[in-house]
């Protein structure tokens, strides 16, 4: 064995001992570091194989993607019967909105991203012009969806359903509850007794009542107090309730943010001679909102998922459409497929929201690290 000699200072970095790096090294270190670990690894792999084999088989390989009915599905193969989704995807997305008018929903949905872009991404080019569009967008969306103006066919609210209903309820609730929540949070901190008392009462009442109770109030009670024939659609009533409910939570989240701001900030603002609104706009809110982002998004995601509660008052959100599909004798019994599909939809939208909030947090993070 020859030992190579080096001059002092010229000794090269030796490669790591064999078996500790690369794929082999990783496997050895993490999976087969001892006899018991090796055994566990082998057992897990075998279990995983059977599990994944079964899952992939059920989901894809043995699944039927289009058929007349559940019975026809079972005749073809014994995996998942996704035909209930493919045959009814229109219903899951648009509810009972007339097929010929569905382009209106598509346009509203696509333009929603344009309207939201300047609000969500401050660096977007031509932001000022886009903001005008955002301001105008609610009226545009309302007219397009409900119809009745400019020769558009009027659509009854009872035809609304599916993901479209979830998005309408969720987006309206979220968009309306944030400003209301901010106002309530400021109101609660106010020095004016009347404003403070009213805010506290509103927040405590809304937080103290279960959402489902508010929905029943919206669907049943309000009708008794309105004159007959008032066309105050259940959709609007439900959106108002959702807004109030989540505004109360948002208010508390933001109050937490406001209280986290060091007192020195206010004193500095006072010393500069700022009035209340200047102080709020330039000192309080920018800092308070930044701190509260995770809490706010948390509330929004909660609100978004809570929209499924409308099934109890007979509105057909995706869950309701799914149940109705299961009541069709053709598809009776395919509950796993239906519920998985609805779950996937909610996961995608909620995950997108939480990713956005993470991005925003990082962007606004001005703390020195």
């Amino acid at each position: 064995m020859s030992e190579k000699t080096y001059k002092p200072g010229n000794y090269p970095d030796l490669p790591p001992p064999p078996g500790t790096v690369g794929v082999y090294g990783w496997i050895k270190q993490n999976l087969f570091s001892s006899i018991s670990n090796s055994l566990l690894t082998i057992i897990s792999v075998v279990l995983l194989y059977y599990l994944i084999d079964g899952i992939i088989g059920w989901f894809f390989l043995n699944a039927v993607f289009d058929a007349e009915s559940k019975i026809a599905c079972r005749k073809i193969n014994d995996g998942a019967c996704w035909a209930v989704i493919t045959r009814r995807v229109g219903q899951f997305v648009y509810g009972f909105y007339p097929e010929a008018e569905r382009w209106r929903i598509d346009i509203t949905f696509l333009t929603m991203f344009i309207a939201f872009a300047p609000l969500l991404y401050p660096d977007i080019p031509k932001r000022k012009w886009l903001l005008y569009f955002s301001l105008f967008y609610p009226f545009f969306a309302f007219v397009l969806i409900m119809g009745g103006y400019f020769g558009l066919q009027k659509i009854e609210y009872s035809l609304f359903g599916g993901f479209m209903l979830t998005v309408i309820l969720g987006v309206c609730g979220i968009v309306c509850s944030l400003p209301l929540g901010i106002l309530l949070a400021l109101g609660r901190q106010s020095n004016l007794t009347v404003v403070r008392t009213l805010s506290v009462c509103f927040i405590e009442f809304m937080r103290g009542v279960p959402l489902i109770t508010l929905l029943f109030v919206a669907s049943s009670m309000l009708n008794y107090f309105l004159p007959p024939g008032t066309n105050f659609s259940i959709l609007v009533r439900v959106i108002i309730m959702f807004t109030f409910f989540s505004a109360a939570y948002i208010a508390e989240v933001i109050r937490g943010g406001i209280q986290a701001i060091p007192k020195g900030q206010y004193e500095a603002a006072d010393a500069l001679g700022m009035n209340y609104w200047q102080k709020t706009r330039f000192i309080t809110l920018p800092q308070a909102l930044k701190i509260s982002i995770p809490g706010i998004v948390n509330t929004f995601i909660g609100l978004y998922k809570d929209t499924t509660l409308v099934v109890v008052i007979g509105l057909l959100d995706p869950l309701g459409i799914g149940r109705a599909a299961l009541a069709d004798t053709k598809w009776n019994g395919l509950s796993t497929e239906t519920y998985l599909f609805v779950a996937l939809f909610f996961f995608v939208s909620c995950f997108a929201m939480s990713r956005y909030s993470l991005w925003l947090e990082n962007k606004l993070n001005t703390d020195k690290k």
Partner: protein
Amino acid sequence: MKTKMLLAGITAGVMFAGSVLASTLDDVRARGKLNCIINTGLAGFAAPDDKGNWTGFDVDFCKAVAAATLGDASKVNYTTATGKTRFTKLAAGEGEILSRNTTWTFSRDVDLSQTFIGVNYYDGQGFMVPKSLGVKSAKGLDGASVCIQTGTTTELNLAEYFKGNNIKYNPVPIETNAEAQELYKAGRCDVYTTDASGLYATMMSFDNPSDHMVLPEIVSKEPLGPVVRHGDDQWADIVSWVLRAMMAAEEKGITSKNVKELAAKDNKDKEINRLLGKDPLQGLSKLGLSPDWAVNVISQVGNYQESFEKHLFPLTIKRGMNALYRDGGLHYIPPIK
């Protein structure tokens, strides 16, 4: 508090006064559409098809009333309601009819100020068992474990029935129908009990429906029927006679196929003539209906039998109590004269 109550009272008073003044029929005609409150989804009774059109036994009745009053069975707006919201929706005027497998009881009829206009489906609590259990009657269920929804009338009915027949059983309490299906399929309980129509629907959701059976014993009375608001007798009469016309059509052998032909000729049975508008039917003008009202109903929706067979036969529901009186059932139709 007192002022609030007073205010609520006045508002309610004004509301009811308003609803009495305008006749429901005029409202429907002015709108050109009938508002019908239906189930959010119940196999055989109300469910949307792949195209999004509501179909089912209860939905057919909405269509029949639309055909009678507007001449077109398709002119219906469907509003879905859950068990909890259905009565308030009807009371608040969100629909003219509640056609949602609603059990006719004293309190609902009297206390909630509603009018049950008849029974279109006699239901009752039944028992489902796997055929492999080898039981032919509920009397043979001694010692069985029974899946039962807690807090429902079915729980009480079950206890009363088994106690009355001296049968021991182990209740397996569950919360929802879906949970019951899973437990029953997994064999956690030998018997599942709920309304018979629900049992048939549950059975059809299984992969091998023929391995299960519904026992012949029905242990409670659940007469289901359409409901209208108190206060408009003309409307209640219209709705109830639409139901009777559908049943009378079955009795007289009038179907959607032959109704046009029978309406065109002079029949020996004068009741057919009166029903189909050939001979005058005294008082029809008071209902505000045109003479061809029943022809519209039968040609566009069908008679009771056709509707029943179309929607409930696929669930393997038999006519049983829902047959006409002459076939041993409970449907006995007052004469059309």
